[in-house]
């Protein structure tokens, strides 16, 4: 089958690569600037280009059967422009698929411009595992209006629906809202867990134990139940703000998502607050180590990452930072230049080794749960750190073991 995929983001690149992989002829109408942060994406694209199934171009054929719009949410106008040019086509079998997370109602506008019904197929893949999520999705949401387009869509996505049927049919409007609602639900779970974590601390409970207890309830389940230092990421937080704006005028106006966002924002500074309280509000000249800058492991993305809030908070109190992240890239340097004064930038030291970053340190903050941080070399830490203090933002470590080894340990909610 012949397909045009419009867009430059990871979602577009993965979609183009995976559809080429299943034997289609795909033209990616965009470029390949953004693939570096997604594991295995470069390899996938190179392989498909070499096999001749994937082309990258700025030109496209409006008569192509499948037209997949996969722009960023902000590129709504681009989407409309493409729809307008597609309206000039004559292919009666064309199928326009919108995978972009546009503002609610945009589908209708695009359908009007393109003069044809569209399919809404929201992308639920998470950053860092986008390819496997595309190949083996746990659900394929299909928002459609006509049986013809539905059949066409199912044909195209059949290779990804083989083990069991994960396709769910609904109206385009429901599909649009499902995408938003999913993120809102997940975010709400996380913020609720963080709220419970704070309560655990003052009540002498351990949120890890509480988590296992409630996760065992089948109605609740275990995923997205981790208390931590807040969620970040390009899409998650952004979508949350968008759905917040969306349901605010039409919902109960009780501000549930407001609270979810506020709790999350506060949570990003949780480790700072623990250090601040530990040192009785005196953090000037303290050397603070941060392990992990990206908002999640195996990603270079720092957008909305808790580490950035911690860096600002510590620097504003006069601390010196020693940081280590396995995949730190130019985005971080750029962020520093845009958000920190020159004097503050001088107090940030980027280490090339995780233990080097703990030299003379007064506190080690575990921020992102990269695999390399899972097991601690306590002897090395003890030898290097000035104050044996560990602030565990992901509840990775065994607090008893650390206490037995004369470390002061603070987790989240324990």
């Amino acid at each position, binding site marked *: 089958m012949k397909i045009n995929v419009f867009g430059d983001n990871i979602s577009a690149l993965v979609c183009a690569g995976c559809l080429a992989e299943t034997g289609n002829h795909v033209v990616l109408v965009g470029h390949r600037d953004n693939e570096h942060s997604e594991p295995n994406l470069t390899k996938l694209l190179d392989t498909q280009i070499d096999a001749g199934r994937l082309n990258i171009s700025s030109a496209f054929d409006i008569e192509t059967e499948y037209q997949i719009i996969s722009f960023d949410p902000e590129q709504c106008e681009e989407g409309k422009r493409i729809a307008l040019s597609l309206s000039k086509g004559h292919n009666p079998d064309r199928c326009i698929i919108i995978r972009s997370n546009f503002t609610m109602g945009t589908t209708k506008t695009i359908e009007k411009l393109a003069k044809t019904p569209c399919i809404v197929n929201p992308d639920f893949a998470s950053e860092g595992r986008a390819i496997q999520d595309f190949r083996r999705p746990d659900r394929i949401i299909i928002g459609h209006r006509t049986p013809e387009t539905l059949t066409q869509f199912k044909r195209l996505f059949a290779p990804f629906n083989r083990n069991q049927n994960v396709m769910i049919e609904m109206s385009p409007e429901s599909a649009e809202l499902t995408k938003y609602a999913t993120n809102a639900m997940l975010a709400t779970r996380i913020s609720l867990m963080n709220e419970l974590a704070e309560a655990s601390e003052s009540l002498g409970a351990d949120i890890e134990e509480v988590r296992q207890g409630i996760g065992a309830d089948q109605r609740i389940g275990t995923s997205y139940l981790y208390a931590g230092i807040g969620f970040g990421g390009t899409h998650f937080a952004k979508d949350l703000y968008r759905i917040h704006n969306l349901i605010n005028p039409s919902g109960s106006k009780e501000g549930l998502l407001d609270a979810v966002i506020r709790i999350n924002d*506060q949570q990003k*500074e949780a480790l*700072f*607050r*623990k*250090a*601040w*309280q530990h040192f*009785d*509000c005196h953090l000037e000249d303290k050397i603070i180590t941060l392990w992990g800058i990206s908002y999640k492991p195996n990603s270079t993305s720092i957008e909305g990452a808790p580490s950035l809030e911690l860096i*600002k*908070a510590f620097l*504003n*109190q006069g601390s010196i930072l020693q940081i280590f992240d396995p995949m730190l890239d130019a985005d971080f340097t750029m962020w520093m230049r845009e958000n920190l004064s020159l004097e503050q930038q001088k107090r940030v030291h980027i280490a090339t080794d995780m233990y080097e970053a703990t030299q003379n340190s007064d506190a080690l903050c575990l921020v992102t749960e990269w695999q390399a941080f899972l097991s601690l070399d306590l002897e090395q830490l003890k030898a290097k750190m000035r104050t044996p203090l560990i602030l565990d933002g992901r509840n990775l470590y065994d607090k008893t073991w650390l206490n037995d080894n004369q470390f002061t340990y603070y987790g989240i909610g324990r």
Partner: protein
Amino acid sequence: MIHTHAYAMLQPLAESMKAQHLKELFAQDSERFKPFHLEKEGLLFDFSKQKINTEIIDELLNLATEQQLDTWIERLFNGDKINHTENRAAWHTALRDVSSPNPEVAKQWRKMESLVNQVHQKQFRGYSGKPILDIINIGVGGSDLGPLMVTHALDKDKHEHAPDVHFVSTLDAQQLHKLLKRLDPATTLFVVASKSFATIDTLSLADTAKEWIEAHAPNQEVVMNHFVGISTNPTKMSKWGILLRHQLIFWEWVGGRFSLWSTIGFSIALRLGMQGYNDMLAGAHAMDQHFKQTPFKQNIPVLLGLIGVWNTNFLNLSAQAILPYDSRLKYFASYLEQLEMESNGKRTKRDGTAITYRTCPILWGEVGPNAQHAFYQLLHQGTERVMSDFILFSQGVSQPDRDRDRENYHHNLNIANCLAQSRAMMSGDANEDLHKDYPGDQVSNTLLLKKLDAYHLGMLVALYEHKVFVQSVIWDINPFDQWGVELGKKLAVDIFEHIKAQSVDDLDSSTANLLKNIWKQRHEN
């Protein structure tokens, strides 16, 4: 004043002017507005609805010259110690001299800016590490009214990251307790503003605030993260516990009622941002330049002051109403009450001899449209002759989320009411039925400003400050001391001791019996 040549010339002029009705002056000259208004960028001063003519204005200007107003203005701006009873300068103009900043003043601006930025960037932390979200300004008199008046007036222009700012001043602590009940101690910062850092009103409230933080903070060491001090006395601030980095300074030469231009304006800067605070200073500075450099005949504060003197001492008017036609200026009249009455409400000349003429009239006021339903009855039909200042803004409030037509409608209604009231007071309306007869002949000024923003408000406040100064020179008063407020403070200490001892010995019978009744009632259900 009364021994000047001009005074002698003005007296007969007053007699003939008293016999004339204000509306006749307009009837005699259809272009009366022209000679009796002044303009400066952003401000128009219409004094055509005053019972004056050019001859009177000329003699008033002569009076100013005879009283050596020019020398006094020079001394004011030079920072001479013209507050001679306290041996201090009254150099508030130096606080806002944005064209050639005083280095000491500029140093405090920088410190203030750094604290303001910390709060706005949510990096000013309380004991828990959470950022400060609420500010409680504890201060009385000048340390309260100025910031309260300005922050209320300019709330629309608040900084996007501004914290909520609350003001407490009354020593019964009712305002404070109400706030403590609903605010989170972890995210509340107290700004303790006191010139001497010894005023019982302020310190008693600050102590209550400190106890509240102590009750919630994990230990004593972290309590002072919740206090910023503003005073002329760093030693006393340190003794009370204010951290050095949280101390903002001003100087003996800043009078309390002129202190909003100093670091006392910290709450203003927190609410408006440094840009807003600087705009306010710039507006005041523009008025300073105008006052200092403009010939008296075109000088707005000089004329505003002289007309007040004319009304008080020659036409025998007994009160001054302040009538802003903008609800954002809710506290403006209260602010002027202190500025004018604490400055010129005096009966002693600079040389220590008694004054034999009238000085500062009773001043009061209210937002115009509200006052229309309150005391305008008295203005229109009462027996008291009153002078009024109408304050109006050409541009109304414009908010992007509001309906533009409705905004215009309301603003035009407001303008119409303001102009109608001053016109009605001027012309009156004769009626055979005395119940419906309006005598008119009530004089007024109208101050028309372009819009209500930090710049224009700064200009307006400085205008009144200089008006007060002009009048003090004519009346030969030191406007910068306030000995009149001391006796009450002293007696309060004495009565407080009586209350503690539950004794009425040596008290007069009224005070003694009031106390006895209070004690009795306090033990009743």
